[in-house]
């Protein structure tokens, strides 16, 4: 279902794919600038910007001081006045310092001004756990942003989508928040060369199935696909939907799948309570697909605790392949 599957594609890592998207954008549009902490000679905390500074120089690949609120606000102001900034938060957790500019300014200024302006800013948020960096460097906060009208929020799960969604975000006149999972940065996959976009607002069916629909985001897509293969061995055919965009939701893709399978499991890394799975579940439960449901809607989300440091605890705090298998098994058990 890969929109560019027919184009000759090389394998790139997720981080390289993002870098390539930025490279394409910087090369083709003078208005594009990158901003963030240590994105210059350091290459970014996760080496996503890499050596772009060598090509585009410090005026377009701008190291910001450690000033998240101000930095994000500068990006918003620049976007309002003709530039196309891509602002990198070094860790998504530091967005807690910049919610004012993101939520009160970027998300609302167009509406508050009756449509007189647009804010074409892109913000990138390295998110998620698994790196042993503990509670202040491992959060998955995308649900906060998905609660805010005026923002668009995406969570690419593959190198292909990471590049395509970033290029789509850059073409989008509205603020787009991109949540990238840190553990995906090294993941490799086919990525077309040059310019292409992946539409914001469209989910992707990664695996077709008839017994249960599993809606997953970001890194969980891969865990779910792994679980789905194991489940297939037991005769359970799961349909796996990669949500890709968490605001706005692709209702139709999810609902059509649920109408087909009559069972829904949502899998996401963020804290379970009020994570994106809450919205998916509620959206389905209030739709006409409700009548097709043969079982309660199950959510697998992060544990109700901060992310712990100890590596085993850290794993225990977010859904793992075995948890998914177990949950799906329980879900389809009563299906006869």
């Amino acid at each position, binding site marked *: 279902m890969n929109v560019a599957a027919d184009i000759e594609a090389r394998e790139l890592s997720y981080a390289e794919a993002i870098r390539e998207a930025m490279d394409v954008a910087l090369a083709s549009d003078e*208005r594009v*600038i990158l901003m963030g902490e240590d994105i210059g000679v350091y290459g970014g905390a996760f080496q996503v910007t890499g050596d772009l500074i060598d090509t585009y120089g410090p*005026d*377009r690949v701008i190291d*910001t*001081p450690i*000033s998240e*609120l*101000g*930095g*994000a*606000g*500068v*990006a*918003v*102001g*620049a*976007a*309002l*006045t*003709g*530039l196309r*900034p891509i602002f990198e938060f070094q860790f998504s957790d530091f967005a807690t310092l910049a919610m*004012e*500019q993101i939520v*009160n*300014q970027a998300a609302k*200024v*167009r*509406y*508050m*001004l*009756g*449509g*007189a*302006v*647009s804010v074409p800013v892109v913000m990138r948020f390295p998110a998620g756990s698994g790196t042993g960096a503990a509670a202040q460097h491992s959060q998955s906060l995308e649900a906060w942003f998905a609660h805010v*009208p*005026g923002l*668009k929020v995406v969570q690419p799960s593959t190198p292909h989508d990471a590049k395509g969604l970033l290029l789509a975000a850059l073409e*989008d*006149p*509205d603020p787009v928040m991109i949540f990238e999972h840190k553990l995906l940065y090294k993941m490799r996959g086919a990525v077309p060369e040059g310019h292409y976009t992946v*539409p*914001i*607002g*469209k989910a992707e069916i990664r695996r077709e199935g008839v017994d249960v629909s599993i809606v997953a985001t970001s890194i969980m897509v891969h865990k779910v696909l792994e679980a789905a293969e194991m489940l297939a061995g037991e005769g359970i055919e799961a349909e796996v939907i990669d949500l890709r*965009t968490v605001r*706005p939701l692709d209702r139709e893709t999810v609902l059509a799948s649920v109408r087909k399978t009559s069972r829904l499991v949502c899998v996401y890394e963020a804290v379970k309570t009020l994570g994106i799975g809450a919205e998916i579940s509620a959206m389905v439960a209030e739709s006409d697909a409700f009548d097709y449901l043969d079982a309660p809607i199950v959510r697998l989300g992060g544990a109700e605790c901060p992310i712990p440091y100890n590596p085993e605890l850290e794993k225990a705090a977010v859904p793992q392949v075995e948890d998914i298998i177990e949950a799906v098994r329980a879900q389809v058990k009563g299906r006869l």
Partner: protein
Amino acid sequence: MADTSPDNIPFAISAYTPERLRGALRQMYLIRKFEEGAEDSYTRGLIHGTMHLSIGQEASAVGACIGLSETDKITSTHRGHGHSIAKGADVGRMFAEFFGKETGYCKGRGGSMHIADVGKGNLGANGIVGGGLPIAVGAALSAKRLETGAVTVCFFGDGANNEGAFHEALNMAAIWKLPVIFLCENNKYGMSMSTDRSTAVASIADRAVAYAMAGASVDGNDFSAVSEASEAAIARARAGEGPSLIEAVTYRWRGHSKSDRNRYRSKEEIAEWMACDPIPRMVQMLSDHGIIGAGDAARIEAEAEAEIVQGIAFAKESPAPALSDVTRDVYTKPAA
């Protein structure tokens, strides 16, 4: 009798044509009358919500903007009517916004705290204290990168100077030598908190040192003094010499907003400052130097008054937004 020997000619008199000076006086009257009209409209129940009047602060708004062209930008505050008018806004559309009408600057979506006039370079008032500071730096970054030659004046209050955004914005503007002027209207209080109690330094301008930035404190009720400091800062900005911090010491005659019981300042203090009204001082200066003759001031005032009456009438007659449009203009490009 003012000293009119060449040495003592006020800056404004030597810097501006008589026509511009009369225009400045007209704007000062227009601001005063606008605020009085707003107050009156509020009493008559035409205005929903709250409002922050700038009566007494007319010289700083007009003095800071006289040196700007329409390509130059400003960012404004919750107490922003004066800034809007000084940057050339139409009072009819301002009242229309105040009255929540579709013809208002924000089509009735923003109200007093969000009036903007992007075509004239006014990027908007802001409901968040300090919210405009990083945005102004972003506008200046755009100007520098896109080489528009534009200067941005960032209005903010003494209260805002204790926000983290102030620090981050001034630091970034300084390290990047951006064409931005931080214009602090120090009216002695942030709501009820006097600068003595809120701010560790006696003069906000003292904080320029922390950013190795040019800093000046001027009599904010003296149009000439404000324009002199502003022109110097504009010249520095246009010459690529970076940002400036100007403190215009002034006073708001009215309460902070409509709900203020004025328990934190004395009648005497208010009376003292009212005796220092910037408008008669401007009239005096202009007549001392032959810019206006007998009766001119009264005529200009009457014209301003008429403009306000007309503006209010326009606003009253204007249509309200359609309820079905409540979610219009959240996005420039509603998603797929």
